[in-house]
């Protein structure tokens, strides 16, 4: 193994903050282009990429704003590089139009949103989980993206690798929805050897003339060439046929394209979805959690155990597509499901939709000052519901 290769994957055990681990995960996954704009609490990702990308022959560029950043990322992806940007709420809002462009043109790219308290400038340095619905529905029109939620620096590394892989496999923007707590948290991170890290690359067309925007059935993912390889590509955010020609009035072409870019995610949800579960077989009460809040749930599970309460905990590593099946499964076994979130209720509505009448769903909401929901707060809510 050459020394250069060693620089690409820093195998070993490190003490890193989440943002650093995210940047290293990207490099390990093969990311060679980063465009961004400074914003707390995501700036450390850009700073780390600025230092590290040149070492591995990659390009770092700070753009004039977040719109330019996501634009450059999409342009670089069509140039054949795995590309990423990182931001927080205000910048994430600015990126929305072009996230839709990436969905429509089926451009692989990774967008990190290290959430802070909004709306607007809000509490710029304080954690929150308020971008759940924006990550799902931020851009206009019918679309699907994949949204992952890490809860530790280790997962900032692991899920960033995964984000690139999913993005390459499904030709879709993947959002890493982190938060200030996980982004700034320092913990041990184990970076595997390069051989242990699974890396997927976009499928290339086998010949010039192969359709690259369709021709793969109703849920398929077409191959993707680079710009500059003789394909005479027509890439457009307007509705297009499988060869890229704009078809801006034909209802059938629009239905076919938009349905496929939605269904290629929906129909593959089982392959995409990744959750961690605790005790869901014999639970007295259910908890659905994600991101930093799940760390408090771990403790609440232990505290409850001491009181004889078995908590069925589902921690979502994938938020979108929403892991309906496992949530339903828990709902069938318990009477109550708690959804703690650092917002005034976002994912809880999705849980309610899925659970229906199977169980009573209750939000535990907390915002302001970046204060986490504590294990005790979760425990006391459980006691109340179970009448203990």
């Amino acid at each position, binding site marked *: 193994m050459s020394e250069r290769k060693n620089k690409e994957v820093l195998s070993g055990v490190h003490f890193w903050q989440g943002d650093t681990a995210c940047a290293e995960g990207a490099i390990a996954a093969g990311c060679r*282009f980063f465009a961004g704009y400074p914003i707390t609490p995501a700036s450390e990702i850009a700073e780390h990429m600025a230092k590290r990308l040149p070492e591995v022959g990659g390009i770092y560029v700070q753009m004039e704003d977040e719109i330019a950043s996501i634009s*450059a990322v999409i*342009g670089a992806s*069509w140039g054949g590089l795995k590309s990423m940007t990182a931001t927080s709420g205000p910048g994430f809002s600015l990126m929305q139009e072009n996230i839709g462009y990436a969905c429509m043109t089926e451009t692989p790219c990774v967008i990190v949103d290290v959430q802070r308290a909004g709306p607007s400038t809000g509490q710029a340095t304080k954690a929150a989980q308020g971008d759940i619905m924006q990550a799902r529905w931020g851009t206009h029109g019918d679309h699907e993206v994949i949204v992952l939620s890490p809860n530790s620096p280790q997962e900032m590394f692991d899920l960033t690798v995964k984000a690139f892989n999913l993005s390459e496999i499904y030709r879709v923007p993947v959002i890493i929805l982190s938060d200030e707590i996980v982004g700034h948290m320092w913990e041990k991170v184990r970076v595997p050897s390069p051989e242990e890290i699974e890396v997927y690359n976009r499928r290339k067309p086998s010949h010039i003339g192969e359709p690259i925007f369709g021709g793969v059935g109703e849920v398929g993912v077409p191959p993707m060439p*680079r710009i*500059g390889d003789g394909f005479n590509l*027509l890439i457009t955010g307007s509705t297009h046929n499988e060869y*890229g020609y704009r078809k801006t009035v034909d209802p059938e072409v629009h239905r076919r394209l938009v349905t496929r870019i939605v269904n290629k995610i929906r129909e593959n949800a089982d392959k995409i979805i990744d959750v961690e579960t605790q005790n869901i077989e014999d639970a007295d009460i259910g908890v659905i959690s994600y991101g930093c809040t799940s760390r408090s749930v771990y403790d609440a599970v232990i505290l409850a155990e001491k009181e004889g309460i078995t908590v069925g905990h589902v921690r979502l590593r994938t938020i979108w597509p929403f892991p309906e099946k496992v949530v339903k499964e828990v709902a069938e076994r318990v009477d109550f499901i708690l959804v703690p979130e650092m917002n005034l209720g976002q994912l809880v509505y999705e849980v309610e939709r899925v659970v229906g009448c199977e169980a009573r769903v209750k939000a535990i909401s907390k915002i302001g000052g970046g204060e986490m929901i504590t294990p005790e707060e979760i425990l006391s809510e459980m006691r109340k519901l179970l009448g203990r």
Partner: protein
Amino acid sequence: MANKHFALKFLREETLPTAFCPGCGNGIVMNCFLKAVEELGFHDLSGFAFVSGIGCAAWCVSPYFKADSLHTTHGRPIAFASGLKLARPELNVVVISGDGDIAGIGGNHLIHAARRNMDLLVICINNFNYGMTGGQVGPTTLHGVITTTTPYGNPEYPFDLARLVESAGANFVARWTTVHVRQLINSIKKALKKEGFRFIEVVSQCPTSFGRRIGKRTGRDLMKWFKERSIHISKARDVQEVEDVIIVGEFVDRDRPGFVRKIHEIIFKVREENV
């Protein structure tokens, strides 16, 4: 076929004729660009990548050019092109788009790409209005002019795009009109051979959405007007008011190293130190 138009080899013939209105200036710009490419000795567009935004001007390259084209969102082609150029530095990346796209909604990308000296050729087709959406006022619309959104006359003043981009740091800046075909071809040829940020503004006619509102109903009327108002930069040293004249010519031609070269110098240095 000996008498086939030279440009056809660079075009997707199945997409012709273009969707542009009769008398539109976009065809002249396409023709001049392709002539420049032909005169430089290219037989196809395989070494090029074209990027455009949203608007009539943005359609010149997509779908008509037989080449790779990235038809992006409104105002963002320069930013998309920057990422593409950095990923594929060996390609000649060219942006062709409208005045509203490049100088209005995308104005920030324009000045920053010029400042950064990003290795792109940007051709801005300035028809003084938002043509595609029906002739609304834009950042280059002349003062006092009536448009669909300035029914009482434009209270604002237009950008002098060439001077704006020159002062932002571009390596090469020229402005011509669709009347100055030979000069435009020559400037495109010169620009294509240079590195860094290169900007060519082409004042162009939009009879449909703009001309008819100022009493110039045909492309020909507008071109006559351009010809009368044009004054070469060498004779326009003292002219400050862009209102009454169109200053044409090459505004700047310098050779600062482009961004791509700079960033690759950094990568080279970092990797040498690390191995």
